[in-house]
């Protein structure tokens, strides 16, 4: 829904801190009347099919704005506070376009969010009409950054990077554990995402010594996975690689658990469920041991733990949407800080030349080439002991991979 939230004013301590710093820099002007706030558009689907993801994204963005304002706002703009203008994309690109028009009329300095690829595609294009900076939070389709739109930036990795990393990491994981897996069954939803991924696996895995026993497609939605599970039981693969959405994967994992089908590993890519705490909480036995290659926050950064604590306090299940939106908002705030202006050209230029490192993703320094953050990468996760742990790459890991997995 459409709402404007003016975030809480700066706390006294933060104010004292900033004014002390400002005084040290010889800028007593900070004590005069507060600078006009900078409006930031946050676009998320909070009604419709994607509402669950949209709420998480909104929480991440809201928390980041609160923190920035508490720390003194945008200092180069005289300590201007960030004012969130929230827009509901209603889970479809048409509503998203409509909301971009509204954000434009409200005079936002930039827009963050979108979540689903179609929403990001349509909304960033609508923003491009006004030369309004648009930072994509999740949308993985590579079409987002290959259109030559100078206003669009994607902080997270796209599908090409994710699939390549997923295959590389699988090989590394298998090799470092004494090559326990040799035979594979691919299960995929028959849309573009699942089918495209399966095709890539079919060409890449045999080159690296894997044998693909069978590729099993299924439609989305599917309400029964018994046939797929029975087929897996008959084939007895070492590894099952599913690429499906939340509902279908949960169904498959549960059916496999009920029928005691235990491959050495379940390795999924950008899976809707394997990195979702709802799945882990509701079906811990089916979830344990499942691996996924997906977006995830860097578990070693202290800010990650703080944000997660806040999410827990708000009763939200931790998922990648929260840290991604949190980081994207901070990325924009950093660009505003360096631009020292709300001028659209300057904000876009500042984003394009960003080397922002104050995020909580496992990415390193930000560097945009044609709108894509070059440092962005997914990580490998595994459900272990009712928690989701990062197992790969080792530099970011907070647990060791358990592969082959024994319950």
């Amino acid at each position, binding site marked *: 829904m459409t709402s404007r939230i003016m975030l809480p004013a700066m706390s006294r301590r933060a104010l004292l801190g900033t004014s002390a710093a400002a005084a040290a820099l010889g800028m007593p002007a900070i004590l005069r009347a507060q600078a006009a706030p900078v409006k930031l558009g946050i676009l998320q689907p909070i009604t419709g099919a994607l509402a669950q993801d949209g709420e998480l994204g909104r929480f991440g963005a809201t928390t980041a704005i609160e923190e920035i304002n508490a720390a003194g706002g945008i200092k180069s703009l005289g300590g201007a506070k960030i004012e969130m203008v929230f827009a509901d994309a209603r889970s479809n690109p048409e509503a998203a376009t409509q909301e971009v028009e509204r954000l434009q009329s409200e005079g936002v300095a930039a827009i963050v969010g979108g979540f689903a690829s179609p929403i990001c595609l349509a909304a960033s294009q609508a923003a491009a*009409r006004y030369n309004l900076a648009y930072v994509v939070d999740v949308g993985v389709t590579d079409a987002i950054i290959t259109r030559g739109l100078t206003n669009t930036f994607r902080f997270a990795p796209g599908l090409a990077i994710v699939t390549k990393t997923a295959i590389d990491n699988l090989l590394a994981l298998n090799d470092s554990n004494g090559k326990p897996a040799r035979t594979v069954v691919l299960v995929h939803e028959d849309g573009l995402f699942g*089918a*495209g991924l399966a095709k890539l696996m079919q060409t890449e895995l045999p080159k690296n010594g894997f044998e693909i026993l069978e590729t099993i497609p299924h439609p989305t939605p599917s309400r029964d996975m018994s046939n797929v599970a029975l087929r897996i039981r008959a084939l007895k693969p070492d590894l099952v690689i599913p690429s499906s959405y939340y509902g279908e994967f949960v169904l498959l994992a549960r059916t496999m658990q009920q029928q005691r089908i235990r491959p050495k590993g379940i390795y999924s890519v950008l899976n809707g469920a394997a990195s979702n705490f709802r799945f882990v909480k509701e079906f811990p036995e089916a979830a344990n041991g499942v691996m996924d290659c997906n977006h995830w926050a860097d578990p070693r950064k202290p800010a990650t733990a703080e944000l997660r604590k806040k999410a827990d306090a708000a009763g939200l299940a931790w998922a990648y949407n929260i840290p991604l939106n949190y980081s994207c908002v901070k990325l924009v705030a950093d660009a505003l800080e360096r631009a020292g202006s709300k001028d659209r050209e300057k904000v876009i230029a500042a984003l394009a030349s960003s080397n922002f490192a104050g995020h909580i993703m496992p990415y390193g320094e930000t560097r945009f080439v044609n709108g894509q953050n070059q440092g962005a990468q997914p990580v490998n996760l595994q459900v272990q002991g009712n928690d989701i742990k990062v197992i790969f790459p080792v530099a970011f890991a907070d647990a060791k991979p358990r592969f082959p997995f024994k319950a």
Partner: protein
Amino acid sequence: MKGRDDLRLLLVLLAVLAVVPAVASNLVINFLVTALIVALAAQGWNILGGIGGQISFGHAAFFGTGAYVTELLQLRLGWNAWATAPIGILAGALVGWAIGAMVFRARLRGSYFALVTLAFAEVMRILANALDFTGGASGLLLKLQPGAEAFQFTSRAVFAWIAIALVALVLLGTRHITRSRFGAQLVAVRENEDAARALGVDIVATKLRAITLSAAITAAAGVFYAQYFLYIDSQIGYGTWISVEALLASIIGGVGTVAGPVIGALALHGLGELTKGLAGQITGIDLVTFGLLLVAAIAFAPSGIVGAWRRYRGSRHRA
């Protein structure tokens, strides 16, 4: 002669609407264009479903074909948008004719006809989602090239004017149909097929003409949608939303009336936006309003807003 009064009223309303884009913000214009796209699709639906009595649940098949054909010709063959628009409309009409030829020859009527049209739209949605040619699940995206030569005006007001002109054109066309021989035959088919056949009306030919025309108009809405939003996927093009909105706008406005679909679409979307503005904190409140409005329309004004208006006027004249 009440029909004429309604029409005059509506043309005045459209003329007033035509002033809006010149003064209103992009936000208002955007709302107007979206509502008018639905109005156009609903006008198409109304010719077959309202005047002809063949209730379709699958007008998405025509809307999507219009949108997909115009985008595909531009993306795959590099055609100019203006040249692709008539082809998109023709393609939609062709799909309408083809579905009609199969379904009407098989003598499917009533709920059978409704279900078959729904099935056709769903098959097309699944195909558009699965084929690489149609962009699969990631859909089709037209390149942003603001300018009149690419049918992408820099000013949103121009889009609104074109939409208003299209709606007005179809309005006059529909009025012409209701007064023509073809319109009379169509109504005869709606009221009683056996009686119409006995009077010498070629049932299949009449229905085929109606579905072809109906499909062409709804396809025009699809073409316009594609040019305005520049992005379609299988869910937008062939999804059930447009079938439902076309039907809903017609029912709420007044099934089978000339002005019904336009009034219905504007009322539906206007109320949706209004409730969203008033009760902004409750998510999905506009959808709740849609539902309540439909229940109210069916319970209290089965002949829609236009019907209720006529009844009100009639009772005043008598008094």
